[in-house]
C-alpha cells in the first residue's frame, strides 16, 4: 500500500517527500538494544575535565584564560580560528566552574587518533554559572542574529564531521535553499545517541530544526529517520503535531534501514532523489543537512542561550554491565563514563570511538569526550572477531554490490596493490566514503578500507611532493636567472653606454621579458628532466 502511495505521489504531487531506493548498502546486526534500554542519564560532574581545543597542527587557537585562573561555567576558554579571516571562530566554553590547572596535549576520543591541545579544568563542584541570555521569542530573530548566536555558542556538527554549524548556515546565504534535511538516520551499529535524544526530547529537536530552517532560509524541513526506530518516530510525530512552529512545519520521512543511509550524499539521494555531483556542495543544489544533535544544540544555543558544553554519547560494548546514553560534559574522560556503566576491566579488549563500522580504536581510557564523540564502545575480547588471515580476492563482487558510491572495490584493491595512481583515480578512489560496507561483506576478510585510506594518503603525499618540487624548481630557475643576469651586468658594466633618458622605462620591461624568456627556455629542459625523474621515481616505487 505504501509503495502505491509513493508511486502515486511521485506522479501527482511533487511536494510529498518519500524514501527512494539507494545504491548498495548493507544491513549489519545493529547491536543497539542494550544502550536503548535506559533513558538518557546526566553524569555527575567529574573532578577533572580535559577540554579539547584543537589539534597541535590544526587551526590557530586564541586562549582566553590563564593557568590557575578560576572560571565559571559557560565562560569562554578559547577560540579556535578555523580560517584566517576570523569568520569561522568556534569558541570553547567551560562545562563547569573550577580552576584551570594546565594546558597540554592529550588524547581525545575522536577519529584523528592524534593528541590534541586540551585545557585541564579541576572542577570545584559548585557549578557556578554565568547568567545565560535565553531568546524567548526566537521567531523575532533575524537570520544573521541566529547565525551569530549559534557561532557564539560554539556549535559544530554533532554527527561526527564537526564542521562549524554557523559556517554551514552562512553558506546557505549563497544560494536559495529548498530542503533542510535533519539527519536522524543513525544507521551505524551500536550508536543510539540520536535515537534516545529523539525519543525523549523530540519537541526540542523539532524546535531546533525550525531554528536551523529559519537560519538557512530553507523552504522545507525534512527529518529523515530509519524505520527501525519506532519509539523515536512516535515521539517525532507527536512533536510535529504539537508544533507551534514558524512559517511552515517540518516533515518526517521514514527511510528503510540500510547502512550507510545516514551518509550525507546517500541520504540526500534517498530523501530528495537528487544526486549531488562529486566535488560540489549540496547547497549548490539547494540542500543543506544537519544532524539531530546539532538541531538540539541549536535549540539550546538560542532558546536557552546555553553554549555547547555537553553532548549525547552512547556508551556500549560487552565489557560494560549497563550500556546507556549520557548527556556528557565536553572534556569528561572515557574511564569516568566506563565506571558509571560498570566496566569489567579484565574483559575489555579495546576501546572504540564511533560505531563498529567506521569507528577508530583509541589507546588510552583517559581520552576526553569532544563535541563529535557520538559513541564509545568498550569491546570485549570476543565481541568482534579477531582479524582472520586474509585470503586472496576472488573478485566475487560482493563489495561492488554493497558500495554506496558504486565503486568497484575489488578493482581498487588490485590497483592499490600495484600503486597505479592513474587507475585508482579513474576508478574513483577519492569518491570512497570509507563506510566499510565492502570490508563487512568481503569473504576473503580483506582490509579494503584501510588499503584505500593508505592509497589516498600515498596519493596525497605524492601530490604534495610534486607541488613542493615545482616550487623548488621555480626557485631554482629564478636563482639561475639571477646569476646569469648578474654575470651579464658585470660584462655590460665594462662597456657602459649611457642610455637615452627617453627610454628610461624600457629596461624594466626588457628585464621582465628576459626573465620570462630565460625561464621558458629553462622550463623546457627542466620539464624533461622532471619527467624523467618522475618516471624513475615511479619505477623505484614499483620495484620496492
Amino acid at each position: 500500500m505504501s509503495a502505491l502511495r509513493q508511486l502515486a505521489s511521485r506522479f501527482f504531487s511533487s511536494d510529498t517527500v518519500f524514501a527512494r531506493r539507494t545504491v548498495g548498502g548493507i544491513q549489519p546486526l545493529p547491536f543497539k538494544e542494550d544502550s536503548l534500554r535506559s533513558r538518557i542519564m546526566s553524569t555527575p560532574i567529574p573532578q577533572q575535565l580535559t577540554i579539547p581545543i584543537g589539534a597541535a597542527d590544526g587551526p590557530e587557537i586564541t586562549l582566553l584564560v590563564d593557568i590557575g585562573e578560576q572560571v565559571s561555567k559557560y565562560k569562554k576558554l578559547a577560540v579556535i580560528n578555523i580560517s584566517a579571516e576570523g569568520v569561522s571562530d568556534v569558541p570553547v566554553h567551560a562545562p563547569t566552574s573550577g580552576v584551570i590547572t594546565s594546558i597540554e596535549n592529550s588524547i581525545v576520543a575522536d577519529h584523528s587518533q592524534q593528541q590534541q591541545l586540551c585545557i585541564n579544568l579541576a572542577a570545584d563542584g559548585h557549578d557556578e554559572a554565568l547568567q545565560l541570555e535565553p531568546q524567548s521569542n526566537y521567531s523575532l530573530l533575524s537570520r544573521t542574529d541566529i547565525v551569530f548566536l549559534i557561532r557564539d555558542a560554539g556549535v559544530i556538527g554533532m554527527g561526527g564531521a564537526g564542521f562549524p554549524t554557523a559556517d554551514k548556515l552562512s553558506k546557505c546565504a549563497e544560494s536559495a535553499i529548498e530542503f533542510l534535511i535533519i539527519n536522524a538516520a543513525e544507521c551505524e551499529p551500536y550508536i543510539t545517541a540520536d535515537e534516545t535524544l529523539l525519543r525523549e526530547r523530540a519537541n526540542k529537536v523539532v524546535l531546533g530544526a525550525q531554528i536551523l530552517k529559519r537560519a538557512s532560509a530553507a523552504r522545507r524541513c525534512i527529518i529523515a529517520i530509519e524505520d527501525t526506530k519506532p519509539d523515536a518516530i512516535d515521539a517525532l510525530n507527536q512533536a510535529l503535531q504539537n508544533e507551534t512552529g514558524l512559517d511552515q512545519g517540518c516533515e518526517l520521512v521514514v527511510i528503510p534501514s540500510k547502512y550507510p543511509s545516514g551518509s550525507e550524499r546517500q541520504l540526500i539521494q534517498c530523501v530528495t532523489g537528487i544526486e549531488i555531483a562529486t566535488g560540489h556542495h549540496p547547497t549548490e543544489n539547494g540542500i543543506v543537512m544537519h544532524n539531530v544533535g546539532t538541531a538540539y544544540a541549536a535549540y539550546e544555543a538560542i532558546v536557552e542561550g546555553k553554549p555547547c558544553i555537553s553532548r549525547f554519547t552512547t556508551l556500549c560494548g560487552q565489557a560494560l554491565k549497563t550500556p546507556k546514553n549520557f548527556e556528557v560534559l565536553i572534556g569528561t574522560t572515557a574511564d569516568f563514563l566506563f565506571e558509571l556503566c560498570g566496566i569489567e576491566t579484565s574483559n575489555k579488549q579495546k576501546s572504540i570511538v564511533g560505531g563498529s563500522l567506521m569507528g577508530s580504536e583509541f589507546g588510552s581510557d583517559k581520552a576526553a569526550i569532544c563535541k563529535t564523540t557520538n559513541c564509545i564502545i568498550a569491546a570485549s575480547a570476543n565481541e568482534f572477531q579477531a582479524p582472520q588471515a586474509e585470503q586472496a580476492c576472488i573478485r566475487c563482487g560482493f563489495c561492488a554490490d554493497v558500495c554506496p558510491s558504486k565503486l568497484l572495490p575489488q578493482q581498487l584493491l588490485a590497483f592499490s596493490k600495484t600503486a597505479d595512481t592513474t587507475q585508482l583515480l579513474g576508478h574513483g578512489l577519492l569518491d570512497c566514503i570509507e563506510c566499510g560496507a565492502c570490508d563487512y561483506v568481503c569473504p576473503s576478510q580483506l582490509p579494503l578500507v584501510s588499503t584505500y585510506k593508505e592509497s589516498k594518503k600515498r596519493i596525497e603525499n605524492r601530490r604534495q611532493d610534486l607541488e613542493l618540487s615545482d616550487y623548488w624548481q621555480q626557485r631554482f630557475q629564478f636563482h639561475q636567472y639571477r646569476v646569469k643576469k648578474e654575470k651579464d651586468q658585470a660584462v655590460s658594466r665594462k662597456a657602459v653606454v649611457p642610455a637615452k633618458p627617453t627610454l628610461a622605462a624600457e629596461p624594466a620591461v626588457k628585464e621582465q621579458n628576459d626573465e620570462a624568456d630565460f625561464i621558458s627556455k629553462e622550463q623546457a629542459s627542466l620539464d624533461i628532466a622532471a619527467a624523467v625523474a618522475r618516471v624513475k621515481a615511479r619505477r623505484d616505487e614499483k620495484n620496492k
Partner: protein
Amino acid sequence: MSDLMAGAPFQHSGRNIAQLMQTLLYALLPGIFASLWFFGFGILINIAIAITFAVLAEAAMLRLRNRVSRTHLSDRSALVTALLFAIAIPPGSPWWLVALGIVFAIVIAKHLYGGLGKNPFNPAMCGYAMLLLAFPLEMTGWHIPFEVINGPLTVDNLGIPALTAERELLSPLSWGGFKQALLLAFPFAASGAIDISEFVDGLAMATPLIEFKMAGKSALLAARESGVSLFARESETAWEIINISYLLGGLFLLYKRIISWHIPLAIISTVFVLAALFYAPGHVAIYGTPYLHLFGSATMIGAFFIATDPVSAATTRPGKLVYGIIIGVSIYSIRVWGSYLDSIAFAVLFGNFCAPILDQYCRPRIFGHGLRSKTDRARPNEAPVKS
C-alpha cells in the same frame, strides 16, 4: 599498513570463502543426484578420483609455493574445481583421464598463474579443454542411459543385439552397475572381463543436443518420438531432469546471493534468442529447438556454475552482462557451426579472454559522477570544481 589505520571496520558479516564454496557444493548436489540416477555410479567415481587428485595437487602446490596448506586447503576451492571438472567428464572415463585433467587444472591453470584469485582462466574448463584436445576419443564416449539399452523398443531400434547381454552390467544403480563403473574407471582391474569401452565409445553420446547434431534421425530420436515418461531413464528426459536440477541449484545460488543474476541470465537469454532466431523446423541443418539448446545440453550448468566462477569472469555488472552475451554467442556458434560436440568449455575460456578488457571499459557510473549540478547548468561556462 600503518598502525593508525588498522581496525575499522570492526564488525564483519562472518562470510568467508569456505562458506561460499560450501554453498556452491550444496547447489551442485541436485544435479549430481540426477546424473547418478540416470547414468549410474560413473559420476561418483569421477568425483572421487577428481577430488583425490585435486586435493593432492593443491596440497603439493601450496607446499611448493610456501603457503600454509591447512588454511588454504580449507577454502574448499579445489573441491569446487574438482567437482565441476568431474561433472564435465564423461562417466565411465578411465581414472588416468580424470586424474590428468584435474592435475592440469589445479597445477597449470590455477597455481602456476598465482593460485586462488589469480588464475585468468577457469581451471576446470582448462583441464577439460586440454583433455578434449589431447584425448578426443575418450572424451566423447558417454554412457548410454539404462533404459535406452534395456528397453525392448530401443534395443530393437538400435539393432545391436550384443548390447542386451550387458544390460545387467549397465543397470546404473545396481551392484552390477557399480562394478561396471569401477571397471570402466580402473580398466587394469578387469581380469579378462568384457571390455565394455569398446561399444561405449562408438555409441554413447553426451547430451541430446549432441545426439541431435551427430545422429540426426537416429535410433534414439525414434525412441523419443515413440513417447517416454518423464522419469524414465531415457536419454532426452534424463538430460532434461539433470538440467532442471542444475537450474534449481543455480536458483539456490542466486537466492543465497553467491552469484549475481547477470551472467546466467545473459547466457541463457542469448542462447535462447539465437536458437529461436535460427531454428527452422524441417530444415536439414542441425540447428535444434531453443528448448533443446537450453535443456538438452550443458547450458544450465555452464550458465550457473561454470561461467559464474568469479575469479575468471568479468567483475563489473555491465561487464558481466556483456561477458554472458559473449559466452552465449560462443556457445551457440560452436555448437551449430563448429566441430566440437558441446561448447561450454571453449565458450567460457573465450569469455575469460575478454574479461579483463570488459572490466576496464564496462564500468558502472560512479555515484555523483557524470552529472551536472544545478549550478553548472546555471553557469555553463565555468569548469566544475575538481575534487
